[in-house]
């Protein structure tokens, strides 16, 4: 079990957004979390990554058997938890090389490894760029600065490839992507899949799931997971929209 969430309640300021989430992700599984806007999908991603703006009021999260809520965001990262941001942040003047080198070497230090030499590091960058299929010029630019929406998302997948996470959470990675970009992103994710890694794909639309096939699909609605099923659920949602789920929930 890589992740176990028990009765998670969390919110921003006075507002409660997550109202009792229960979720289990096993090693090697791909989970999709779907749901209408405002259902709490991104808040869940923020809690998992340790964003301070979200306050956990109840519940617990175990990551690899450890209490996740006691870990700092950077510790979670170094323990192999990766968040692909819905809106990747620009850091002007900081080259992708410098940024990734700092990150990779922090991860290595955490595992008791020596920092990579400059040439080994550049080799690693080259390999991962090819694997993910992103423009090699991206690496010489400042982090996300002036990147198009698609480039930013591809850059998230590239960073994921560099850090080889155990659990990756992709927060609406498909939003704002045309079909070609979507395919590149999905291909990247599929290529990075290992038997010992798990992913949570958060998405509003079904179309990403044409390319990334989930083992389990959850529907998040009003801060709770209201439906969990196999991958066919995604298709049903695509066909019927979210209204029937809302009706079902309200009836109960």
């Amino acid at each position, binding site marked *: 079990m890589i992740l176990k969430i028990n009765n998670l309640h969390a919110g921003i300021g006075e507002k409660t957004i997550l109202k009792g989430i229960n979720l289990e992700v096993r090693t090697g599984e791909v989970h999709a979390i779907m749901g209408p806007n405002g259902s709490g999908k991104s808040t869940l991603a923020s809690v998992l*990554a*340790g*964003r*301070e*703006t979200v306050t956990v009021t109840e519940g617990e999260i175990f990551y690899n058997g450890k209490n996740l809520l006691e870990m*700092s*965001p*950077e510790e*979670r*990262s*170094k323990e192999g938890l*990766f*968040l692909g*941001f819905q809106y*990747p*942040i*620009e*850091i*002007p*003047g*900081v*080259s992708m*090389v*410098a*940024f*990734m*080198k*700092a*990150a990779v*070497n*922090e*991860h290595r230090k*955490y595992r008791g490894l020596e*920092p990579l030499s*400059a040439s080994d590091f550049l080799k690693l960058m080259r390999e991962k760029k090819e694997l993910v299929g992103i423009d090699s010029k991206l690496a010489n630019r*400042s982090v996300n600065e002036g990147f198009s929406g698609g480039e930013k998302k591809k850059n998230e997948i590239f*960073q994921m490839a560099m*850090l080889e996470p155990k659990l990756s959470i992709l927060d609406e990675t498909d939003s704002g992507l045309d079909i070609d970009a979507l395919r590149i992103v999905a291909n990247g994710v599929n290529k990075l899949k290992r038997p010992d890694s798990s992913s949570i794909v958060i998405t509003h639309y079904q179309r990403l799931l044409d390319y990334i096939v989930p083992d389990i699909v959850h529907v998040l609605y009003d801060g709770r997971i209201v439906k969990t099923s196999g991958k066919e659920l995604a298709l049903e949602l695509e066909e019927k929209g979210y209204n029937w789920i809302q009706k079902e929930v309200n009836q109960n």
Partner: protein
Amino acid sequence: MEDNQDKLLNEVTSGDYKYGFYTDIDSEQAPKGLNEDIIRLISSKKEEPEWLLEFRLNAFRYWRTQKMPGWANLKIPDINFQDIIYYSAPKQKSKSNGSDDIDPELKKTFDKLGIPLEEQKHLSGVAVDAVMDSVSVKTTFKETLAEVGVIFCSFSEAVKEYPDLVKRYLGSVVPYRDNYFAALNSAVFSDGSFCYIPKGVRCPMELSTYFRINAANTGQFERTLLVADEESYVSYLEGCTAPIRDENQLHAAIVEIVAEKNAEVKYSTVQNWYPGDKNGNGGIFNFVTKRGMCKGENSKISWTQVETGSAITWKYPSCVLKGDNSVGEFFSVAVTNNYQQADTGTKMIHLGKNTKSTVVSKGISAGHSQNSYRGLVRMSRNAAGARNFSQCDSLLLGDKCGAHTFPYIETDNKTAIVEHEATTSKIGEDQIFYCNQRGINTDDAIGLIVNGYAREIINKLPMEFAVEAQKLLQISLEGSVG
């Protein structure tokens, strides 16, 4: 560059001021206070000619008629000028045998500061003039430089050995009437560096002066005079540190640069005076007048400064663009944290035709600090076709600090073009969280972001100092967020 950046990120672990130690060494000091007798004493200690004593006394008499300037965006506590020691020279034990050897204690001090005074130990080709309190203790590579005709020595030595050069240029760029602190410095300056690059010579190594304040209750008033004759080139760097003390200490320096026809001078500063503690106690008051005169046509003077230290910084390295087609540049990163205050910028005075100037200023404020950019661009009547471009960026960390911009533009020539751009931004929680999520802790994230922001300036510094400057930026801001 990337490698170095990593190295420094790893090795920097604490935000303490690393140069705050004190060297226990006997020194010969003048009594506290400022009057004509003290000035005569300084002058006689230095065995100065009559004309220089006159220069000092005139400056002093002028200074007495002046008031402390109050226009800067600074809160300056009253300074009791009678409570300061104006001359303090470390006593050197081994000077007597006539050799160039310096006192082991002094040598140790500069070793500790990372400034080895033995030439063979110096990694890169950098000649150093080391100044402690009121005197220059050692100038390295003098002989090597002399072979190509470059004069590089302490100011006191220059007065004795090259009186004509000193007399011709002293006060020619910064007259003692220029401002309050220039007058004070002209009256009591003790030592500093002198440099002359002869016609057609490209100085074969970087020149640098390292200033160290050591003794308590003293002020440091040094003077640097740098003359680049026609067709010559020199790159010059100064660094400075001081011990940690609870009381403030005064540093009022003058730097004068003259660039003749087709000459180029690059002057870089890494200013790391003791900034005071986290509550704003102690620290250096840094009141400095720096000015370069692009005297000949096609001459160029370029100032690069990384300012991280001092409790108060009041400093405007400027260029007077007199020669036609001459070029002035000012690249600055000023960091203030805790209760530091900085009012810094430049003046670009365009006198000649087709003169060009570029100003890029990056302010970074954190803690409760106040950081101001103040810059003047003047296009005089004869400055036909002159151009200026100024860019002032401010970066704020936290919400208790301030960033201010005071640009002054005066144009008397219609063909002159002045451009000014300004931005203010905050290091976002988002940026820090993004770094955290990739495994980079908050202090390192700030170091990365700030160095990215300042990269354009840092890249102007000579390589070894660029690394030093990056390190400094990070240390100065450690613990400022979160």
